[in-house]
C-alpha cells in the first residue's frame, strides 16, 4: 500500500495529478485509441466508413463480443476462463443437434447446458479453491472433446429453412440479429458491472479477496455467478454462430479464449483483477475486429501476416499499458 500524506495538496500534489492521468489513460485509453484508429482508417481507406463495411466489422466481432462480456466479469473478479472457446463449439453442436427436434431448443439448450458447465467451473474454483487456470484448462480440453465426440468430429448441417437460422442470418430494422444480441449483452453487462451491488462485489473480490471476505461479502457466490454467466454467454454465442453458418462445427471457437483475453486486456482491464470496464472491453473487441478488417482491406497480406500483425499489436498495447500502470497510482 502506498503511504502518502493525508493532504493531497502537498508538494507531491502534481506528482499525484500525473499519476492519476496515467491511470486514467490505462483504464480508458482503449476507447480513445478506438476513435483514433477509426478516424485514421476512414481517411486511409475509401471503403472503410461504408455501412456495409462497418456492419461487417461489428458482425465479425459480435460472436467474440458475447464471450468477452462474460470474460470481463471473470477477469475483474480475479479469475480467468479458458474454456469459453470449447463451450462455443459445444453450443453450436448442441444447437445443430436439437434444431430438428424442436427449433427453440436450439436457442435455449446451448446457453443452459454451458451455464451448468460454468456453474461447475465456478464451484470447483470458489468452493474447492482450485486455480481458475487449471480448472478452465481442463474444461477447454474436456469440453472440446465432448463437442467433437457428439458431432463425430464433423460439422453438423442445419436446414436453411429452419426458423432458427433467423437468429444468425436475419435482421431487425436492418441490423443483423447477432449484433442486437451482443449490444444488449454489453449494455446489460455494463450496467450490472458499474451500477449494481453485484458489480461492486466483483470489483471488491478481484481487488482484495481476503478483505472482501472479512467485510462479509459473499465472495464464493459472486465467483460462481461470474463463471456461470461466462458459460451461458459462450453457449449462446455458439448457438448464434451455428445459426449464422447454418452448421454446428465442433472445431469452432479454436483459440477464441485467447482472443477474448486479448480484447479484455487491450480494453484496460487488469489481468490481476479489481479494475476494468465493459466499455473498455467493447473497445477492445472492436479494435481487434477492425484490425482484421484493415488487414483484409490491404488485401495482399493473407492470413499469416494477419497473425503477425495481431501479435505485434497485442505486444504494443500491452507494453504501453505496463508502462502506464507502473507510472500510475497503483
Amino acid at each position, binding site marked *: *500500500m*502506498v*503511504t*502518502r*500524506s*493525508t493532504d*493531497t495538496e*502537498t*508538494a*507531491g500534489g502534481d*506528482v*499525484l495529478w500525473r499519476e*492519476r492521468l496515467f491511470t486514467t489513460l490505462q483504464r480508458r485509453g482503449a476507447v480513445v485509441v478506438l476513435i483514433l484508429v477509426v478516424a485514421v482508417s476512414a481517411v486511409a481507406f475509401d471503403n472503410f466508413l461504408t455501412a456495409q463495411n462497418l456492419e461487417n466489422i461489428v458482425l465479425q466481432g459480435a460472436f467474440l463480443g458475447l464471450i468477452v462480456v462474460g470474460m470481463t466479469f471473470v477477469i475483474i473478479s480475479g479469475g480467468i476462463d479458458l474454456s469459453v472457446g470449447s463451450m462455443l463449439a459445444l453450443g453450436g453442436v448442441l444447437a445443430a443437434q436439437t434444431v430438428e427436434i424442436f427449433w427453440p431448443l436450439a436457442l435455449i439448450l446451448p446457453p443452459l447446458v454451458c451455464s451448468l458447465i460454468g456453474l461447475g467451473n465456478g464451484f470447483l474454483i470458489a468452493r474447492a479453491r482450485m486455480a481458475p487456470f487449471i480448472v478452465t484448462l481442463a474444461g477447454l480440453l474436456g469440453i472440446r472433446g465432448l463437442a467433437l465426440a457428439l458431432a463425430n468430429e464433423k460439422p453438423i448441417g442445419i436446414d436453411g429453412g429452419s426458423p432458427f437460422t433467423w437468429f444468425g442470418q436475419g435482421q431487425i430494422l436492418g441490423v443483423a440479429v447477432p449484433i442486437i444480441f451482443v449490444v444488449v449483452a454489453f449494455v446489460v453487462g455494463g*450496467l450490472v458491472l458499474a*451500477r*449494481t*451491488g453485484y*458489480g*461492486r*462485489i466483483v*470489483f*471488491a473480490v478481484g*481487488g*482484495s479477496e*481476503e*478483505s*472482501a*471476505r*472479512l*467485510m*462479509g*461479502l*459473499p465472495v464464493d457466490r459472486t465467483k460462481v455467478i461470474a463463471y456461470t454467466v461466462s458459460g451461458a454467454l459462450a453457449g449462446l454465442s455458439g448457438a448464434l454462430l451455428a445459426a449464422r453458418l447454418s452448421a454446428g462445427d465442433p472445431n469452432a471457437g479454436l483459440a477464441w479464449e485467447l482472443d477474448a483475453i486479448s480484447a479484455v486486456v487491450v480494453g484496460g482491464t487488469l489481468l490481476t483483477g*479489481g*479494475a476494468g470496464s465493459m466499455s473498455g472491453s467493447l473497445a477492445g473487441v472492436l479494435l481487434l475486429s477492425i484490425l482484421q478488417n484493415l488487414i483484409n482491406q490491404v488485401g495482399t497480406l493473407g492470413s499469416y501476416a494477419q497473425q503477425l500483425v495481431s501479435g505485434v499489436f497485442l505486444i504494443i498495447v500491452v507494453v504501453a499499458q505496463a508502462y502506464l500502470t507502473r507510472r500510475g*497510482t497503483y
Partner: protein
Amino acid sequence: MEQRDPILEVRRVTKRFPGVLALDGVSLELRPGEVHALVGENGAGKSTLIKVITGVYRPDEGQIFLGGEEVSFAEPRESQAAGISTIYQEINLIPLLSVAQNIFLGREPRGSLGLIDRDRINREAAEILERYGIRADVAAPLHSLGLGVQQMVAIARAISVEARVVIMDEPTSSLEAREVETLFGVIRQLREEGVGLIYVSHRLDELYEICDRVTVLRDGKVVHTGELTELSRLQLIAHMLGRELAEVEAEGATGFGEEHEAREEPVLQARDLTQRPRLHDISFDVRPGEVVGLAGLLGAGRTETARAIFGAEPLDSGSVKVSGEEVKSGSPAAAIRAGVAFLPEDRKSDGIIPDLSVKANIVAAALPRLARAGMVSEKAQNELVEEFMQNLGIRASSPDQPVRELSGGNQQKVLLARWLCMNPRVLILDEPTRGIDVGAKAEIQKLVDDLAVNGLGVILISSELEELTEGSDRVVALRDGAVVGLLSGEEITEGNLMEVLAHGGGSGYGTPEDGNDADE
C-alpha cells in the same frame, strides 16, 4: 455502571491449530455501554479470539452468546448480519475502490430501477465523514490516501452499520493525535447508545483513558479480568508478561539490557537519502556495536528508509556508505555484498519462501558463497545450516521441513539465520518481534543485544515503544519522511520520544546534523 445482562458472552472457548493451542478455555463478558479492553502480548491470542467471535474461525470447544442467545457463525458475513462490527488492525478495505464505495460496499443505496445511486453514495459518504470529522475526498481511490485516513474510513464503515457490538483491533496504530481524539469521541457516543465495545491495544495510556474493564490474555488463557481503575500500569504489564511485579520494575519489560560499547568509526553512513515523494534528505550514522532505533508513526518512512539503505528501491539522490565505501543504490545484491543485511517487516510476504525447506530458506542469500562455477555444494550448505539451526535454537522436525509449517518465532529465527550466516556488518531489523510469542520474542531481543555487544551495527525499527527505548543506544525520529529528532542514551524515554514524534523539530533534542560524524 449498573449491572446489565451481558450483550456478548464468550464461555470457555478453546481453539487449536496444528502445533499450537491458541485459546484455552477463554471466557469474556461484554456489557452494553461498556468499553472493554482486551490486552496481551503478541501471540497471546487476542486476534484469534476476535476471529472466533466474528466467525472467521470456529471454536473447537466452548460457546458464544449474543444478546443472551447462543450463536454459531460460519463466516464473517453472519456475524455482521447479527450486529457485530469489526475494525481490524490491517486495513481490510479494497484499495482500488473509492472511499465512498468502500464505506457502502455490500449495502449500496439504490436509486430508480434498482441501480446503484452513485450521487447518493458520494453524498452520504461525505456526510458520514463530516459527522466524524474525517477529511477526505470521497471519490478518491482509497490507496491514494494516508494510512491514518484509510483507517478512519474503515472505522466509519464499521460504525455506519447498526451494530450492537463493535470490536476495535489496534484502531489507533495509524492515527495521529487529532484523529485519536475523534475516535474517542465516536467511542463515547457509541457507549451512550448502549453499544458494547471491545478495545484491543497495547497503548496503555489509551486504555486507561477510554476503557472501563480489562481482560488480560497470556499464552491463550485469561489471567485477569476486572476494572481498570483497580489495576496499576505496572500490575497490568506484569500480568501481560507473566513476571513478578518487582522484576518488571527493576529490569524493564524486554530482553534488551546489555551495555553496548560503540566504536568511533561509523560502519554505515546514510547521507541525504531522498526518494520522492516518501523520503527527504535523511541522514544518520550507525557505529559498530551500536543499536540505532528508527522511531516514527506508521507512514513516517521508517520501512522506506530501511529499504532505501538496503537498495530495495533506488534513490533519487543521496548515498549510502558501508565501511567508507559507497554502495550502489537500488541493488540489494550490492548492499549484501557490502555487508548489509535486512530483515523485512512482513515475513510472510517478503521474508520466507513458504514451500521451500528450512535449509533452502536459510541459505537463500548465501548461495553465491556456497557455490563454485554455479554448482551448489550440498556439503557446505548442510554444515552451515546445522550450525545456525543450533546456534539460534531453531525448532523444526528437520532441515528439510517446509518453512511454512514452523511457528512465527521459529520462522523469524530462520530469517535471522539467513542473514547472520552472511556475517554482516550492519543488520537492519524491521519489526523483528511482531507476531511472535512472548518467549521467542525475548530470545530474539537478547540475541540482537548480544550481536551488538559483539560489534555488529544494528538499525532497529519497532512500533513497540518499550522495545525501542530499552534496546536502542540512539534513536532517530522520523516524521513524514524526514528526520525530526535524535535522542541518545538517557534521553531515550517513551515520553521524550512521543513528544519528538508529535511536535518534531524544535523540541530541544538533537537535530539531524548533531551526532553524525563529519563528512569527508
